[in-house]
């Protein structure tokens, strides 16, 4: 293993700070470290010269006072070698923090990717990141009282105290007007609030405020459910990548239990994950077409999403979404043999349809002109912010968990990872359409190669106080779950990092320098769900006049921009 040399170098450089080293799985390495050099360690790993695609994945904060008498903060780095020569792995740098004064030197002062993670641990656990550049609230609402930290174990899962309303917005730069988008808006899968600071039509700076629909799912998982029941709530974290979340969670628990799930179960998971990816990408392509005023593409994309894809999922699993197929140790329902021909037939039909959609899309002048050179995210910014998934691949980052970490049956199938260097909205569209074609090929291969045998390995009691990561490549990027088991088959800490968490933090960077009419398309281009559309407010800073645009008006603005072309 080449990774050993890289680790030896790292251990040598920081030998004064490393207390303990533990292999959670052969590719997940946990270091128990002193908090002092945390930023340097994270920086060293993220910008490692050989593992050039490495990035900061998430920061896990947990209340381990019952276990170790201290809090714990653990940045996770995904060590990726872009050339593919070395084995990739995850590094978890776990630092214990004092129980009365949980301070730590902020990683975010060196890595922008950690900005949100550290605001999160401050909000939910009361940690104090020192020298953090922007310590406004991220998750807790404006009227949440100071000094109450919901993820601490002494806070009941249903307690919701009242507090004073505070102002948490960023100050607008000189001579700009503010255009708020949201809190309810068509371009976001949750209510979120973008404040665009504009000079004329040009966006100068952006403020983001979100987490209005924070549901406290992690807390429910930790308090009330057993490890086999968490699947169903994990599946409902997101309406689009539900199966990705439940598979990532399953993987984490299976890593802890130390079982290899049967090959057939791995194949079934792979096929369903790809079906989910196809439907998500087609949904996204449809909405992107709609936003630029190209409704033929929208109708066509959604038609082919419904007819072969969703209906196939319904017949394979019993539902169009929320498949309910996973369980610790495998899957719950088998594919019967005659399904093989059905899946292959549908894939053949879908391939023809997607190729047609591809041709329609790239031959549409309106779409190309609206999407080309808009919302450019340069490679370097993408890396700094730890952007993942198609958004990262459209900016030239060669990362894909399926290939890099060989999850499930992806190790047995051949597929390409499309990478574009342009970093604009068009590249994000093309990456996704290319991926749909790759997914079809993956499904065809997986159906062909699917081995016979069991679909489930029974797992008894989980060992208490063990931890591990589980991850899959969702449609929007890497989904990662961290599980620390407790006693009685409960979970002590369950941390979920969805891909949009990383991508959304980079959206302000993408918006800067473009027009207000491009904003819906740029925000949409990272693929948050289009769920709730309410209003857009335009505030004139000087007069304080507020003008509200409803969905139709706002979309009109976007569609009109297409007509101008």
């Amino acid at each position, binding site marked *: 293993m080449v990774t050993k040399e890289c680790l030896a170098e790292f251990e040598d450089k920081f030998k004064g700070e490393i207390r303990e080293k533990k292999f959670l799985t052969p590719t997940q390495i946990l270091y128990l470290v002193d908090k002092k050099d945390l930023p340097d360690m994270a920086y060293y790993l993220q910008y490692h010269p050989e593992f050039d695609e490495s990035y900061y994945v998430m920061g896990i904060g947990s209340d381990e006072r019952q276990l170790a008498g201290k809090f714990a903060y653990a940045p996770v780095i995904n060590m990726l070698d872009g050339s593919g020569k070395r084995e990739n792995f995850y590094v978890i740098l776990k630092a214990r923090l004092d129980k009365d004064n949980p301070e730590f030197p902020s990683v975010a002062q060196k890595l922008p990717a950690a900005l949100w993670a550290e605001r999160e641990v401050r909000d939910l656990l009361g940690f104090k990141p020192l020298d953090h550049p922007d310590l406004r609230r991220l998750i807790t609402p404006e009227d949440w009282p100071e000094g109450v930290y919901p993820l601490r174990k002494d806070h009941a899962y249903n307690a919701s105290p009242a507090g004073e309303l505070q102002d948490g917005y960023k100050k607008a730069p000189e001579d700009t007007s503010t255009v708020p988008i949201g809190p309810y808006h068509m371009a976001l899968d949750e209510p979120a609030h973008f404040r665009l600071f504009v000079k004329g039509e040009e966006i100068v700076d952006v403020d983001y405020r979100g987490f209005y629909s924070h549901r406290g799912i992690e807390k429910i998982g930790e308090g009330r459910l057993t490890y086999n029941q968490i699947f169903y709530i994990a599946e*409902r974290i997101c309406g689009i990548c539900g199966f990705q979340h439940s598979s990532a969670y399953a993987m984490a628990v299976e890593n802890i239990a130390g079982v290899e799930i049967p090959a057939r179960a791995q194949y079934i998971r792979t096929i369903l994950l790809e079906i989910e990816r196809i439907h998500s990408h087609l949904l996204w392509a449809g909405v992107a077409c709609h936003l630029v005023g190209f409704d033929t593409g929208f109708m066509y994309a959604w038609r082919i999403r419904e007819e072969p894809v969703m209906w196939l999922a319904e017949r394979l699993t*019993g539902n169009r979404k929320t498949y*309910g197929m996973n369980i610790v140790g495998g899957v719950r329902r088998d594919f019967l043999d005659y399904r093989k021909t059905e899946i292959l037939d549908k894939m053949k039909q879908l391939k023809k349809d997607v190729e047609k959609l591809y041709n329609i899309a790239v031959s549409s002048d309106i779409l190309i002109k609206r999407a080309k050179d808009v919302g450019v995210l340069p490679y370097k910014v993408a890396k700094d912010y730890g952007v993942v998934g198609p958004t990262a691949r459209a900016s030239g980052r060669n990362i894909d968990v399926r290939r890099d970490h060989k999850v499930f049956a992806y190790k047995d199938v051949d597929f390409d990872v499309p990478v574009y260097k342009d970093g604009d909205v068009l590249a994000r569209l093309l990456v996704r359409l290319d991926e749909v074609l790759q997914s079809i090929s993956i499904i065809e291969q997986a159906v062909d190669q699917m081995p016979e045998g069991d679909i489930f390995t029974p797992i008894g009691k989980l060992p208490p106080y063990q931890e591990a990561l589980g991850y899959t490549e969702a449609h929007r990027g890497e989904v990662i779950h961290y599980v620390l088991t407790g006693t009685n088959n409960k979970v002590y800490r369950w941390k979920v990092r969805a891909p949009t968490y990383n991508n959304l933090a980079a959206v302000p960077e993408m918006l800067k320098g473009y027009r207000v009419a491009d904003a819906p398309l740029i925000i949409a281009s990272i693929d948050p769900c289009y769920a709730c559309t309410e209003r857009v407010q335009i505030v004139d800073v000087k007069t304080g006049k507020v003008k509200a645009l409803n969905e139709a008006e706002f979309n009109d603005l976007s569609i009109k921009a297409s007509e101008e072309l």
Partner: protein
Amino acid sequence: MEDVKISYTESLISWKRPDLRVGVPVTVKYPLVPTEKPPEYRGKPHIDPNVCIGCGACVRACPADALTAEWDLENGLKSIVSNPARCIRCGRCEEACPTGAMKLTLEFELATPNKEDLVEVVEHHLTKCKKCGDYTEFTERQVEKAFQILPKEIVDANALGEKMQLCRECRMEESVKILAAQGRIIGDPLLLPPQHAKGGEK
């Protein structure tokens, strides 16, 4: 015409979506014309009251608390209550059910002005303790089922025929007496408190 019986798998293969039967892709006048879900669909759960034995396995499996067990020890009743408005259609109850009473149906049109319309309650009678006359924690059907599926040797070896007729406390006392008679407990068995009187299902 006589009915041709086809196997379950064949019925799955031959099922065709109503939209495709009439040759229209995707868009049908759904609320105006009836539609149909595929045989694999997970819809509203339904308990067959003729088959349910009231064991409560589904209640333990349910992650969403859509299924609950309600005890009325005074009147000797145990009810399994299914509330489809809370149900998330995961199908764990169907897997856990030992008798196949619990089934997810193909029903999905559940709109109602009153959610309680959807609730299903299956009431079971509890058996009475042969010794003290109190109600036990077993339903009549549960005891019957247990004797059906347990091999006779096991029933005889553990004297289950007697024990199953007793309530929890009396059963404890009996066990203690037997153990004492075998010399595995020293002292007066009746002075020993019943060890697990509080545990078990609530």
